[in-house]
């Protein structure tokens, strides 16, 4: 069996696990919130092109995306290790990276599947069909697509490293990215939110303001690679909690 077959199998089980009815509905509702806001704006005053960047940045990049990625990313591996189902993967003759990679891909893919359409719809509803606004919307959608995988990789890695991955992930998103990054410029180098802004800036030819700018894509790729390698190493040293 090739590593690809292993990853397809692990990915298939992970997708089935993540697409539980309640979780899927909740995440769809969360991802739908910006669309609902866009509809309300349309019904009220028509489009608001000047508010487009703020809506996409505050609602999608700073709120919906990290929350959806946190739920999928932490459930993909951390929940399995906590509830004991993970032992069925750990006791198979497969390299640990072949467990981590599909979990990152599936949780990132599901995050993108929900949040990218939400970004596009909210962008069109709020910004209208002007070419500049469409360009910004598409740029955010592309950045959100990549950002979903970066967040998911981080949250999968947290799940491999600690049983408190969900709490630490939430703290990272709210405290580090929300508060510290706003106050201390240096911390933005370690903020996925800033990478997304940077990627949106690159894709929109500078229409979106960003601190990291053109370094965003390499930083995002580097982050995914490093945290996936870290998660694989942690999983290789993972010790089951013994009940006796």
């Amino acid at each position, binding site marked *: *069996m090739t590593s690809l*077959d*292993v990853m397809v*199998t*692990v990915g298939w*089980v992970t997708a*089935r*696990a993540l697409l*539980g009815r309640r979780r899927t509905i909740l995440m769809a509702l969360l991802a739908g919130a910006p669309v609902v806001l866009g509809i309300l704006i349309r019904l009220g005053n028509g489009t608001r092109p000047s508010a487009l960047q703020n809506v996409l940045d505050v609602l999608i990049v700073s709120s919906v995306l990290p929350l959806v990625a946190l739920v999928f990313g932490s459930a993909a591996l951390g929940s399995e290790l906590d*509830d*004991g*189902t993970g*032992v*069925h*993967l*750990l*006791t*198979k*003759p*497969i*390299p*640990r990276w072949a467990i981590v990679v599909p979990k990152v891909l599936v949780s990132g893919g599901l995050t993108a599947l929900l949040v990218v359409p939400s970004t596009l719809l909210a962008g069109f509803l709020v910004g209208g069909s002007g070419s500049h606004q469409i360009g910004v919307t598409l740029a955010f959608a592309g950045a959100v697509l990549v950002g979903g995988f970066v967040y998911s990789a981080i949250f999968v890695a947290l799940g491999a490293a600690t049983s408190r991955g969900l709490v630490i992930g939430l703290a990272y998103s709210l405290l580090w990215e929300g508060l510290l990054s706003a106050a201390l410029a240096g911390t933005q180098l370690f903020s996925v939110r800033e990478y997304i802004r940077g990627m949106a800036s690159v894709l929109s030819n500078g229409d979106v303001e960003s601190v990291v700018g053109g370094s965003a894509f390499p930083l995002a790729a580097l982050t995914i690679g490093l945290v996936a390698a870290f998660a694989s190493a942690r999983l*290789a*040293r993972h*010790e*089951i909690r*013994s*009940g*006796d």
Partner: protein
Amino acid sequence: MTLAPDPSGSGPMPRMPLTPPAAPAPAPAHAPGPAPASPLVVDRVSRWYGNVVAVNDISFEIGAGITGLLGPNGAGKSTLLHLLAGLLRPSSGRVLVDGRPAWRQPEMYRRLGLVPEREAVYPFLTGREFVDVAARLQGLPDRRAATARAIATVDLEPVADRPVGTYSKGMRQRVKIAAALVHEPPILLLDEPFNGMDPRQRLHMMDLLRSMAAAGRTILFSSHILEEVERVADGILVIHAGRLAASGDFREIRRLMTDRPHTFRVRSSDDRRLAAAFMTEPAVFGTELRDDRLTVQVSEFSGFTRIVARVARDAGVRLLEVAPTDDSLESVFDYLVSRR
């Protein structure tokens, strides 16, 4: 077969008889050696969590056949099984599976199957899908046939296409066993495998374990139900408070427990006369005649079996039945645990 000494002293516990001067030295069938040939070797292994010692300086080897791992709750059984399964790192000592360290050795799972105690299975998969995933991850060439075989082995065919989330506890147990068996591993570790099974399923599973052992597999299973172990296991490991209390054949262990009298129930043509005759024998501690039942307490199992016929003949009494009353595994286990 070996017993651990009473741990009143400190320091490592060598494998030695329970009462060295009186008992014959047991053959070191489970003693660790430098060039391990047994599939499972635990060599002076300890495992602690912070200040809590879960497994304390344990050594044994297990070869082909069925070995029962006995111990009260919290004794360290699951910790020991997880160490053997490579899911825990030993704090000290060595755990070897087929001569290689179990820790961080994913390749060993080609030759080892684990049935964990926790019920956790993917509830959204059907039983067949669950076993099929195991077959796929094992890289089996004909995984469909292997899956069907494993499901049939645990008698789960009628419900194989139902989601595991709808299974009873016993069914979940069996589907975990099917997944662990799908690649037909020569080594099988089972943590409380009979939990939740009804009597018929238990008997079926016991037959299955026996047939696998007869085929040369090495099987170690933990249980807190002594009857299960007694009926299935060729040998036992008794673990208490993280230490190995005894290992080997439980009847042999009982015979080495020379600081505790053996008890026999005797029926004869004249129990009263026979009781008086026994009291003249130095090997007999005491006799009791109650409700027309004669029980005899003796210091040495084999010594009494040698003299009982002679004593009865000399007393002119006809023996109808001589049976040890406390040679059950439960008796052995109670004794080993109570002296700790």
